[in-house]
């Protein structure tokens, strides 16, 4: 299991567009990927799950990645966060 903590940096929050690219990226990996915020966990491969949290700028969350390609997945998502300015 690979875990890491992030904070939303995009002005618009985790809305449709940032959420779309996040879900698209996460779906490329085999591992189970979960996003935890305020004790609520959602599947990062689920657009509705991700968006239903309604994360705004400044919100902190943890990613939990579990599976064969967990390190690769966490690294991939972290790079996406950085290049799209979504979170850090």
């Amino acid at each position, binding site marked *: 299991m690979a875990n890491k903590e992030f904070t939303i940096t995009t002005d618009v929050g985790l809305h449709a567009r940032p959420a*779309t690219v996040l879900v698209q990226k996460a779906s490329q990996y085999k591992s189970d990927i979960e996003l935890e915020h305020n004790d609520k966990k959602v599947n990062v491969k689920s657009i509705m799950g991700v968006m*239903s949290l309604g994360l705004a700028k400044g919100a902190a969350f943890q990613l939990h990645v579990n599976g064969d390609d967990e390190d690769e997945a966490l690294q991939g998502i972290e790079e996406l966060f950085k290049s799209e300015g979504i979170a850090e």
Partner: protein
Amino acid sequence: MSEQLKGISASNGYAIGRAYELVEPDLSFETLTINKPEAEVKRFDQALEKAKNELQLIRDKVAKEQDEENAKIFDAHLLVLEDPELVGAIENQINNKSINAEAALVENTDSFITIFEQMDNEYMRERAADIKDVRKRILSHLLEKPLPDISLVQEPTIIVAEDLTPSDTAQINKEFIKGFITDVGGRTSHSAIMARSLEIPAIVGVQTAVATIEHGEEVLIDGIEGDIFVQPSEDTKQKYKYLQKEYDKKLAEWALLKNEPSITVDEHQVELGANIGSYQDMDLVLKHGAEAIGLYRTEFLYMENNDFPTEEEQFEAYKSVLEAMENKPVVIRTLDIGGDKKLDYWDLPDEMNPFLGLRAVRLALQNKDVFRTQLRALLRASVYGNLKIMFPMIATLEEFREAEGLLLEEKENLLNEGVEVATDIEVGIMVEIPSTAILAEQFAKEVDFFSIGTNDLIQYTFAADRMNQNVSYLYQPLHPAILNLVKMVIDASHKEGKWTGMCGEMAGEPTAVPLLLGLGLDEFSMSPSSILPARSQVRNLKKIEMEKVANQALQLQSSEDVKRLVDTISENK
């Protein structure tokens, strides 16, 4: 059987094609208990797959024909279709509860729709609509009732609909959509204006089109006379082939006037401008030889967005139009929201009489943040061309002074920030409320120009809702009451050395042009496609004669009298 219908001509030209009924299918269903859940899951997966393919096709088309940005909304829709949580929950429910796929789909999407609708963020609330949209698409495949989708049309087509929404008209691809027919609306309704800007023939207010015309039937439309021929005979088709040829000839003649001045026989020059809604109209504007933009309706910037357009977005939009016009005048109207124009992301109170309520500049003055953002964007864009700013729905001098005050404040702020702003921006008002027309002499001392908005001026003068078909007979642009108001405004502006334009539909009407010319109108702004015919008309008239005709018209008693008077001019030619 060939059949003939009649409606209101909304956009000129002739077209023939297959009728496409743009009607939402009935997607109601009953909750059923099923015997073979595995088969039901399979049926659901197949519907999902079809919906996915369809969305992918639309997405690719939009990306190719419009841009990547507009296509991204469909990416989000596609992800909803692939959502493992949602799909998993639906499949589980079919298996465990033995209910039909339709019921499981609606129940599970409902819970997500509720979550989104309860969020306090306007943008997220709108995502509920996305889920509903996707659900509708899956349902249509489960029930085998295809959704209409005009972007998928691949042959010459005439759309037949109750009415067309802005998102419908945005999807019109002129390669295949040759024209449209609607049951409601008049010459000034949204769909009619869009048809003229797309330059496809259209007939509105037909009332019985959806009921009479069958999907797939051959339809011929005459957008000039408002005639519709369902399953036309060979004779009719031949006749229209000939008319089309004649019409093409006329168009070719008009095209020669593209770079000629709009000047009368006795050398009185006027300005013929175009009404636009966005930069996308600029191709037409330039093609039809507009001498100005007489009205840039900025509300489409607000209506096409999911949220308030930012200062930067607005700045880019205004700048691109100013640059394309290369220093020719561009009159930009500040936001005209309210009345019949609503925004999904802006909760405005429901009003008993929206046209007499909180709209346009009234709304702007009560929401100064929104207004200031637009004013800043306009001021920043001003250095890229010949910008004139216009406030809509001004009823009193105080309103004008308050709006202008905000403009000056933002100008000061920008200059203090070191941002360049043009020094010679004219600031004017729309004249669409009788009180302003009556007090035009006082206004003329303070404003730089007037632009008469005839659609609203007519409805407020006659106290007749222009959306209400029962009183549509009171929409009388040529009525002496209107002509007298127009004259008061023009005279008041000239007395102070200012100018008056007109940006309502009336400015491009062949019967109105001679009268307006005679009344001394300086600028005529209209749909781009009306400019060249109007120029041809102006170049054949004498200002001094039209002054006499206009003075006579002011003394008449009815629109019919005025029409008869104008007819005598054409007969004398």
